[in-house]
Protein backbone atom coordinates (compact mmCIF):
# COMPACT_ATOMS: atom_id res chain seq x y z
CA UNK A 1 0.00 0.00 0.00
CA UNK A 2 2.65 2.46 1.05
CA UNK A 3 5.02 1.35 -1.68
CA UNK A 4 2.39 1.89 -4.36
CA UNK A 5 1.69 5.36 -2.93
CA UNK A 6 5.36 6.26 -3.21
CA UNK A 7 5.35 4.88 -6.76
CA UNK A 8 2.39 7.05 -7.65
CA UNK A 9 4.10 10.17 -6.33
CA UNK A 10 7.33 9.34 -8.18
CA UNK A 11 5.39 8.67 -11.37
CA UNK A 12 3.84 12.11 -11.02
CA UNK A 13 7.26 13.60 -10.38
CA UNK A 14 8.74 11.78 -13.35
CA UNK A 15 5.90 13.03 -15.56
CA UNK A 16 6.87 16.63 -14.84
CA UNK A 17 10.66 16.31 -14.61
CA UNK A 18 10.85 14.46 -17.92
CA UNK A 19 8.82 17.18 -19.62
CA UNK A 20 10.86 19.98 -18.09
CA UNK A 21 13.97 18.03 -19.11
CA UNK A 22 12.68 17.91 -22.68
CA UNK A 23 11.87 21.60 -22.61
CA UNK A 24 15.40 22.38 -21.47
CA UNK A 25 16.77 20.21 -24.26
CA UNK A 26 14.57 22.07 -26.74
CA UNK A 27 15.80 25.42 -25.42
CA UNK A 28 19.44 24.38 -25.76
CA UNK A 29 18.69 23.02 -29.22
CA UNK A 30 17.05 26.33 -30.18
CA UNK A 31 20.13 28.15 -28.92
CA UNK A 32 22.43 25.98 -31.04
CA UNK A 33 20.09 26.44 -34.00
CA UNK A 34 20.24 30.20 -33.57
CA UNK A 35 24.03 30.09 -33.72
CA UNK A 36 24.01 27.99 -36.89
CA UNK A 37 21.48 30.32 -38.55
CA UNK A 38 24.23 32.79 -39.42
CA UNK A 39 25.96 30.13 -41.52
CA UNK A 40 22.70 28.87 -43.02
CA UNK A 41 21.67 32.39 -44.03
CA UNK A 42 24.86 32.58 -46.05
CA UNK A 43 23.78 29.52 -48.04
CA UNK A 44 20.25 30.42 -49.05
CA UNK A 45 19.96 27.93 -51.96
CA UNK A 46 19.79 25.16 -49.33
CA UNK A 47 16.82 26.93 -47.76
CA UNK A 48 15.07 27.47 -51.09
CA UNK A 49 15.33 23.75 -51.81
CA UNK A 50 13.43 23.14 -48.56
CA UNK A 51 10.97 25.94 -49.37
CA UNK A 52 10.17 23.94 -52.48
CA UNK A 53 9.48 20.73 -50.55
CA UNK A 54 7.68 22.35 -47.59
CA UNK A 55 6.06 25.46 -49.00
CA UNK A 56 5.54 25.06 -52.73
CA UNK A 57 4.27 21.51 -52.42
CA UNK A 58 1.78 22.65 -49.74
CA UNK A 59 0.39 25.28 -52.08
CA UNK A 60 -2.39 23.16 -53.55
CA UNK A 61 -3.75 21.85 -50.23
CA UNK A 62 -3.63 25.34 -48.70
CA UNK A 63 -5.35 26.98 -51.67
CA UNK A 64 -8.09 24.35 -51.93
CA UNK A 65 -8.69 24.35 -48.14
CA UNK A 66 -8.89 28.14 -48.15
CA UNK A 67 -11.44 28.08 -50.94
CA UNK A 68 -13.66 25.59 -49.12
CA UNK A 69 -13.31 27.29 -45.73
CA UNK A 70 -14.29 30.61 -47.32
CA UNK A 71 -17.29 28.99 -49.00
CA UNK A 72 -18.47 27.37 -45.77
CA UNK A 73 -18.04 30.65 -43.88
CA UNK A 74 -20.13 32.39 -46.54
CA UNK A 75 -22.96 29.85 -46.35
CA UNK A 76 -23.03 29.83 -42.54
CA UNK A 77 -22.51 33.57 -42.18
CA UNK A 78 -25.29 34.32 -44.65
CA UNK A 79 -27.74 32.11 -42.73
CA UNK A 80 -27.27 34.19 -39.58
CA UNK A 81 -26.81 37.62 -41.17
CA UNK A 82 -29.93 37.52 -43.33
CA UNK A 83 -32.02 37.06 -40.16
CA UNK A 84 -30.91 40.53 -39.13
CA UNK A 85 -31.20 41.95 -42.61
CA UNK A 86 -27.51 42.66 -42.94
CA UNK A 87 -26.40 40.10 -45.49
CA UNK A 88 -24.11 42.71 -47.06
CA UNK A 89 -21.84 42.42 -44.01
CA UNK A 90 -20.94 38.91 -45.17
CA UNK A 91 -17.73 40.17 -46.77
CA UNK A 92 -16.60 41.79 -43.53
CA UNK A 93 -17.26 38.74 -41.40
CA UNK A 94 -15.57 36.34 -43.80
CA UNK A 95 -12.57 38.60 -44.44
CA UNK A 96 -11.98 39.40 -40.78
CA UNK A 97 -12.24 35.77 -39.66
CA UNK A 98 -9.92 34.66 -42.45
CA UNK A 99 -7.32 37.41 -42.21
CA UNK A 100 -7.17 37.56 -38.42
CA UNK A 101 -7.62 33.94 -37.37
CA UNK A 102 -8.38 31.18 -39.82
CA UNK A 103 -5.76 32.10 -42.40
CA UNK A 104 -2.73 31.89 -40.10
CA UNK A 105 -4.09 29.14 -37.84
CA UNK A 106 -5.49 26.68 -40.37
CA UNK A 107 -2.46 27.19 -42.62
CA UNK A 108 -0.16 26.39 -39.71
CA UNK A 109 -2.19 23.27 -38.87
CA UNK A 110 -2.15 22.11 -42.49
CA UNK A 111 1.56 22.88 -42.73
CA UNK A 112 2.23 20.86 -39.58
CA UNK A 113 0.40 17.88 -41.04
CA UNK A 114 1.60 18.19 -44.63
CA UNK A 115 5.20 19.42 -44.39
CA UNK A 116 6.51 19.35 -40.81
CA UNK A 117 5.74 15.66 -40.31
CA UNK A 118 7.79 14.92 -43.44
CA UNK A 119 10.68 17.04 -42.14
CA UNK A 120 10.65 15.18 -38.83
CA UNK A 121 10.63 11.80 -40.56
CA UNK A 122 13.43 12.89 -42.91
CA UNK A 123 15.75 14.17 -40.16
CA UNK A 124 14.82 11.23 -37.93
CA UNK A 125 15.77 8.78 -40.66
CA UNK A 126 19.02 10.66 -41.27
CA UNK A 127 19.74 10.21 -37.57
CA UNK A 128 18.76 6.51 -37.63
CA UNK A 129 20.90 5.75 -40.68
CA UNK A 130 23.77 7.75 -39.12
CA UNK A 131 23.91 10.27 -41.94
CA UNK A 132 24.10 13.05 -39.39
CA UNK A 133 27.02 11.34 -37.65
CA UNK A 134 28.72 10.86 -41.04
CA UNK A 135 28.37 14.56 -41.78
CA UNK A 136 29.88 15.34 -38.41
CA UNK A 137 32.82 13.09 -39.28
CA UNK A 138 33.33 15.00 -42.53
CA UNK A 139 33.37 18.26 -40.54
CA UNK A 140 30.04 19.29 -42.05
CA UNK A 141 27.89 20.74 -39.32
CA UNK A 142 24.51 18.97 -39.59
CA UNK A 143 22.88 21.87 -37.73
CA UNK A 144 23.68 24.42 -40.41
CA UNK A 145 23.55 21.97 -43.35
CA UNK A 146 20.37 20.00 -42.55
CA UNK A 147 18.45 21.48 -39.63
CA UNK A 148 18.67 25.25 -40.11
CA UNK A 149 17.52 25.33 -43.80
CA UNK A 150 14.39 23.33 -42.94
CA UNK A 151 13.67 25.58 -39.97
CA UNK A 152 14.13 28.73 -42.07
CA UNK A 153 11.98 27.30 -44.85
CA UNK A 154 9.03 26.97 -42.47
CA UNK A 155 9.36 30.59 -41.34
CA UNK A 156 9.76 31.76 -44.93
CA UNK A 157 6.85 29.79 -46.39
CA UNK A 158 4.23 30.36 -43.71
CA UNK A 159 3.28 34.03 -44.36
CA UNK A 160 2.95 33.39 -48.09
CA UNK A 161 0.81 30.31 -47.51
CA UNK A 162 -1.38 32.15 -45.00
CA UNK A 163 -1.87 35.01 -47.45
CA UNK A 164 -2.82 32.55 -50.19
CA UNK A 165 -5.24 30.79 -47.82
CA UNK A 166 -6.98 34.06 -46.90
CA UNK A 167 -7.13 35.20 -50.51
CA UNK A 168 -8.66 32.00 -51.84
CA UNK A 169 -11.02 32.05 -48.84
CA UNK A 170 -12.27 35.52 -49.69
CA UNK A 171 -12.66 34.46 -53.33
CA UNK A 172 -14.61 31.38 -52.19
CA UNK A 173 -16.90 33.56 -50.08
CA UNK A 174 -17.34 35.87 -53.06
CA UNK A 175 -18.34 32.94 -55.30
CA UNK A 176 -20.95 31.74 -52.80
CA UNK A 177 -22.14 35.14 -51.56
CA UNK A 178 -22.19 37.21 -54.72
CA UNK A 179 -22.41 34.69 -57.55
CA UNK A 180 -24.71 32.07 -56.01
CA UNK A 181 -26.73 33.81 -53.27
CA UNK A 182 -26.83 37.17 -55.01
CA UNK A 183 -25.52 39.67 -52.47
CA UNK A 184 -24.67 43.00 -54.07
CA UNK A 185 -21.14 42.90 -55.43
CA UNK A 186 -20.32 46.50 -54.55
CA UNK A 187 -21.60 46.26 -50.97
CA UNK A 188 -19.67 43.02 -50.44
CA UNK A 189 -16.33 44.63 -51.31
CA UNK A 190 -16.90 48.13 -49.98
CA UNK A 191 -18.06 46.96 -46.54
CA UNK A 192 -15.05 44.65 -46.45
CA UNK A 193 -12.65 47.46 -47.35
CA UNK A 194 -14.24 49.84 -44.87
CA UNK A 195 -13.82 47.43 -41.97
CA UNK A 196 -10.59 45.53 -42.65
CA UNK A 197 -7.58 47.57 -41.59
CA UNK A 198 -4.30 46.85 -43.33
CA UNK A 199 -2.17 47.48 -40.26
CA UNK A 200 -4.38 46.03 -37.52
CA UNK A 201 -5.83 43.06 -39.38
CA UNK A 202 -3.68 42.11 -42.36
CA UNK A 203 -0.23 42.83 -40.93
CA UNK A 204 -1.07 41.29 -37.55
CA UNK A 205 -2.34 38.20 -39.35
CA UNK A 206 0.92 37.88 -41.26
CA UNK A 207 2.88 38.46 -38.04
CA UNK A 208 0.92 35.62 -36.47
CA UNK A 209 1.81 33.30 -39.34
CA UNK A 210 5.52 34.13 -38.96
CA UNK A 211 5.33 33.23 -35.26
CA UNK A 212 3.51 30.00 -36.11
CA UNK A 213 6.10 29.21 -38.77
CA UNK A 214 8.87 29.61 -36.20
CA UNK A 215 7.09 27.37 -33.69
CA UNK A 216 6.13 24.65 -36.18
CA UNK A 217 9.56 24.71 -37.82
CA UNK A 218 11.39 24.46 -34.51
CA UNK A 219 9.22 21.60 -33.24
CA UNK A 220 9.58 19.59 -36.46
CA UNK A 221 13.40 19.78 -36.62
CA UNK A 222 13.74 19.24 -32.87
CA UNK A 223 11.58 16.11 -32.83
CA UNK A 224 13.42 14.75 -35.87
CA UNK A 225 16.87 15.53 -34.51
CA UNK A 226 16.21 13.77 -31.21
CA UNK A 227 14.07 10.93 -32.56
CA UNK A 228 14.95 7.47 -31.27
CA UNK A 229 16.91 5.80 -34.12
CA UNK A 230 14.36 3.05 -34.70
CA UNK A 231 11.35 2.64 -36.95
CA UNK A 232 9.09 3.09 -33.94
CA UNK A 233 11.06 6.10 -32.75
CA UNK A 234 10.57 7.89 -36.06
CA UNK A 235 6.86 7.06 -36.04
CA UNK A 236 6.54 8.47 -32.51
CA UNK A 237 8.51 11.56 -33.41
CA UNK A 238 6.32 12.25 -36.45
CA UNK A 239 3.17 11.92 -34.36
CA UNK A 240 4.61 14.16 -31.67
CA UNK A 241 5.46 16.81 -34.24
CA UNK A 242 1.90 17.01 -35.50
CA UNK A 243 0.33 16.91 -32.01
CA UNK A 244 2.69 19.36 -30.33
CA UNK A 245 2.72 21.71 -33.34
CA UNK A 246 -1.06 21.85 -33.49
CA UNK A 247 -1.42 22.45 -29.76
CA UNK A 248 1.27 25.11 -29.62
CA UNK A 249 -0.18 26.88 -32.66
CA UNK A 250 -3.58 27.07 -30.97
CA UNK A 251 -2.08 28.20 -27.66
CA UNK A 252 0.15 30.80 -29.34
CA UNK A 253 -2.87 31.99 -31.30
CA UNK A 254 -4.76 32.67 -28.09
CA UNK A 255 -1.83 34.60 -26.62
CA UNK A 256 -1.22 36.59 -29.80
CA UNK A 257 -4.92 37.35 -30.26
CA UNK A 258 -5.17 38.68 -26.70
CA UNK A 259 -2.06 40.80 -27.27
CA UNK A 260 -3.05 42.11 -30.71
CA UNK A 261 -6.80 42.52 -30.72
CA UNK A 262 -7.84 43.14 -27.11
CA UNK A 263 -9.07 46.59 -26.34
CA UNK A 264 -9.42 47.57 -29.98
CA UNK A 265 -13.07 48.41 -29.77
Amino acid at each position, binding site marked *: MRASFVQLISALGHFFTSRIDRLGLAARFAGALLVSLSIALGRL*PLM*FREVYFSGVRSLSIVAVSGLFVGMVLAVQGYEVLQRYGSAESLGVIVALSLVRELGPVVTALLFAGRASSAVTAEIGLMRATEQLAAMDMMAVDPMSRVVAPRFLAAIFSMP*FLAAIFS*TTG*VIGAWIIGVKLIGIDDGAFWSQMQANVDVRI*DVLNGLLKSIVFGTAVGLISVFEGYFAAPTAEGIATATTRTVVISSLSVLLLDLLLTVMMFRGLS
Partner: protein
Amino acid sequence: MNRSRFDFAVGLFVAIGLLAMAFMALKVGNLAGFDSGTGYVIEARFDNIGGLKVRAPVKSAGVVVGRVESIGLDAETYEARVLLRVYPNYRFSKDTIASILTSGLLGEQYVGLESGGDPVYLAAGDRLGKTQSAMILEKLISQFLFSKAAETPAKAQ
Protein backbone atom coordinates in the same frame (compact mmCIF):
# COMPACT_ATOMS: atom_id res chain seq x y z
CA MET B 1 15.29 18.00 -60.08
CA ASN B 2 18.03 20.47 -60.80
CA ARG B 3 18.72 23.84 -59.30
CA SER B 4 16.94 26.00 -61.85
CA ARG B 5 13.69 24.06 -61.51
CA PHE B 6 13.73 24.69 -57.75
CA ASP B 7 14.43 28.34 -58.36
CA PHE B 8 11.54 28.58 -60.79
CA ALA B 9 9.08 26.84 -58.47
CA VAL B 10 10.11 28.89 -55.43
CA GLY B 11 10.02 32.09 -57.48
CA LEU B 12 6.51 31.26 -58.66
CA PHE B 13 5.50 30.46 -55.07
CA VAL B 14 6.84 33.78 -53.79
CA ALA B 15 5.18 35.65 -56.66
CA ILE B 16 1.79 34.05 -55.92
CA GLY B 17 2.29 34.76 -52.20
CA LEU B 18 3.12 38.41 -52.84
CA LEU B 19 0.13 38.66 -55.15
CA ALA B 20 -2.09 37.28 -52.37
CA MET B 21 -0.64 39.80 -49.91
CA ALA B 22 -1.27 42.62 -52.36
CA PHE B 23 -4.82 41.35 -52.81
CA MET B 24 -5.34 41.44 -49.03
CA ALA B 25 -3.87 44.92 -48.74
CA LEU B 26 -5.69 46.50 -51.67
CA LYS B 27 -8.88 44.57 -52.26
CA VAL B 28 -9.73 43.10 -48.83
CA GLY B 29 -8.27 45.85 -46.69
CA ASN B 30 -8.11 49.45 -47.68
CA LEU B 31 -4.58 50.69 -47.97
CA ALA B 32 -5.97 54.23 -47.86
CA GLY B 33 -6.41 53.59 -44.15
CA PHE B 34 -2.62 53.62 -44.01
CA ASP B 35 -2.35 57.37 -44.41
CA SER B 36 -4.03 58.00 -41.05
CA GLY B 37 -0.92 59.95 -40.11
CA THR B 38 -1.72 62.69 -42.63
CA GLY B 39 -4.39 65.33 -42.45
CA TYR B 40 -5.19 67.72 -39.63
CA VAL B 41 -6.84 67.22 -36.26
CA ILE B 42 -9.80 69.23 -35.03
CA GLU B 43 -11.52 68.95 -31.70
CA ALA B 44 -15.21 68.57 -30.98
CA ARG B 45 -16.95 68.36 -27.62
CA PHE B 46 -20.16 66.47 -27.06
CA ASP B 47 -22.46 66.06 -24.06
CA ASN B 48 -22.85 62.41 -24.97
CA ILE B 49 -21.14 60.42 -27.68
CA GLY B 50 -23.33 57.32 -27.41
CA GLY B 51 -21.55 54.37 -28.99
CA LEU B 52 -18.97 56.30 -31.02
CA LYS B 53 -15.66 54.47 -31.31
CA VAL B 54 -12.11 55.36 -32.21
CA ARG B 55 -11.51 54.98 -36.00
CA ALA B 56 -15.19 55.58 -36.72
CA PRO B 57 -15.64 57.51 -39.98
CA VAL B 58 -16.09 61.26 -40.15
CA LYS B 59 -18.49 62.06 -42.97
CA SER B 60 -19.69 65.14 -44.71
CA ALA B 61 -22.67 64.78 -47.04
CA GLY B 62 -22.20 61.03 -46.67
CA VAL B 63 -18.62 61.08 -47.95
CA VAL B 64 -15.88 59.85 -45.62
CA VAL B 65 -13.59 62.81 -44.98
CA GLY B 66 -11.68 61.53 -41.96
CA ARG B 67 -11.54 59.27 -38.92
CA VAL B 68 -12.08 59.64 -35.19
CA GLU B 69 -8.58 59.87 -33.76
CA SER B 70 -9.23 59.65 -30.02
CA ILE B 71 -11.99 59.95 -27.45
CA GLY B 72 -11.56 61.26 -23.92
CA LEU B 73 -13.46 62.87 -21.09
CA ASP B 74 -12.75 66.44 -20.02
CA ALA B 75 -12.33 66.06 -16.27
CA GLU B 76 -13.62 69.56 -15.52
CA THR B 77 -16.62 70.05 -17.76
CA TYR B 78 -17.53 66.34 -18.01
CA GLU B 79 -17.85 66.65 -21.74
CA ALA B 80 -16.60 64.05 -24.17
CA ARG B 81 -13.56 65.31 -26.05
CA VAL B 82 -13.38 63.82 -29.53
CA LEU B 83 -10.41 64.46 -31.80
CA LEU B 84 -11.21 64.16 -35.50
CA ARG B 85 -8.51 63.65 -38.09
CA VAL B 86 -9.69 65.14 -41.36
CA TYR B 87 -8.00 64.25 -44.65
CA PRO B 88 -5.80 67.10 -45.91
CA ASN B 89 -7.71 67.66 -49.14
CA TYR B 90 -10.91 68.72 -47.34
CA ARG B 91 -11.45 72.09 -45.69
CA PHE B 92 -14.38 73.14 -43.52
CA SER B 93 -15.54 76.58 -42.44
CA LYS B 94 -15.11 77.86 -38.89
CA ASP B 95 -18.81 77.46 -38.03
CA THR B 96 -19.07 73.80 -39.02
CA ILE B 97 -21.54 71.74 -36.97
CA ALA B 98 -20.46 68.28 -35.83
CA SER B 99 -23.14 65.76 -34.92
CA ILE B 100 -23.06 62.11 -34.01
CA LEU B 101 -25.26 60.12 -36.35
CA THR B 102 -26.10 56.49 -36.92
CA SER B 103 -25.96 54.80 -40.30
CA GLY B 104 -29.13 52.77 -40.59
CA LEU B 105 -31.26 51.69 -37.68
CA LEU B 106 -28.68 49.52 -35.97
CA GLY B 107 -25.58 50.55 -37.88
CA GLU B 108 -22.35 52.03 -36.65
CA GLN B 109 -22.16 55.58 -35.35
CA TYR B 110 -20.17 58.23 -37.15
CA VAL B 111 -19.47 61.94 -36.90
CA GLY B 112 -21.25 64.09 -39.45
CA LEU B 113 -19.79 67.45 -40.37
CA GLU B 114 -22.02 70.13 -41.82
CA SER B 115 -20.09 73.07 -43.15
CA GLY B 116 -21.40 76.58 -42.48
CA GLY B 117 -20.94 79.82 -44.38
CA ASP B 118 -17.98 81.32 -42.56
CA PRO B 119 -15.23 82.28 -45.05
CA VAL B 120 -12.52 81.36 -42.53
CA TYR B 121 -11.50 77.70 -42.62
CA LEU B 122 -10.82 75.42 -39.67
CA ALA B 123 -7.13 74.89 -38.97
CA ALA B 124 -5.35 72.12 -37.09
CA GLY B 125 -6.16 72.15 -33.38
CA ASP B 126 -9.31 74.26 -33.73
CA ARG B 127 -12.35 73.43 -31.67
CA LEU B 128 -15.82 73.13 -33.22
CA GLY B 129 -18.26 75.54 -31.62
CA LYS B 130 -21.53 73.77 -32.31
CA THR B 131 -22.06 70.10 -31.78
CA GLN B 132 -25.03 67.79 -31.54
CA SER B 133 -24.80 64.76 -29.28
CA ALA B 134 -25.73 61.22 -30.07
CA MET B 135 -29.36 60.22 -29.76
CA ILE B 136 -29.76 57.85 -26.86
CA LEU B 137 -32.62 55.44 -27.34
CA GLU B 138 -33.55 55.36 -23.64
CA LYS B 139 -33.78 59.15 -23.49
CA LEU B 140 -35.94 59.23 -26.61
CA ILE B 141 -38.28 56.61 -25.14
CA SER B 142 -38.56 58.42 -21.81
CA GLN B 143 -39.23 61.71 -23.61
CA PHE B 144 -41.91 60.01 -25.64
CA LEU B 145 -43.46 58.47 -22.51
CA PHE B 146 -43.44 61.82 -20.67
CA SER B 147 -45.14 63.59 -23.54
CA LYS B 148 -47.68 60.77 -23.79
CA ALA B 149 -48.32 60.96 -20.04
CA ALA B 150 -48.74 64.71 -20.32
CA GLU B 151 -51.39 64.50 -23.02
CA THR B 152 -53.37 61.51 -21.72
CA PRO B 153 -55.28 63.43 -18.96
CA ALA B 154 -56.37 66.00 -21.51
CA LYS B 155 -57.83 63.24 -23.67
CA ALA B 156 -59.56 61.57 -20.72
CA GLN B 157 -61.62 64.63 -19.99
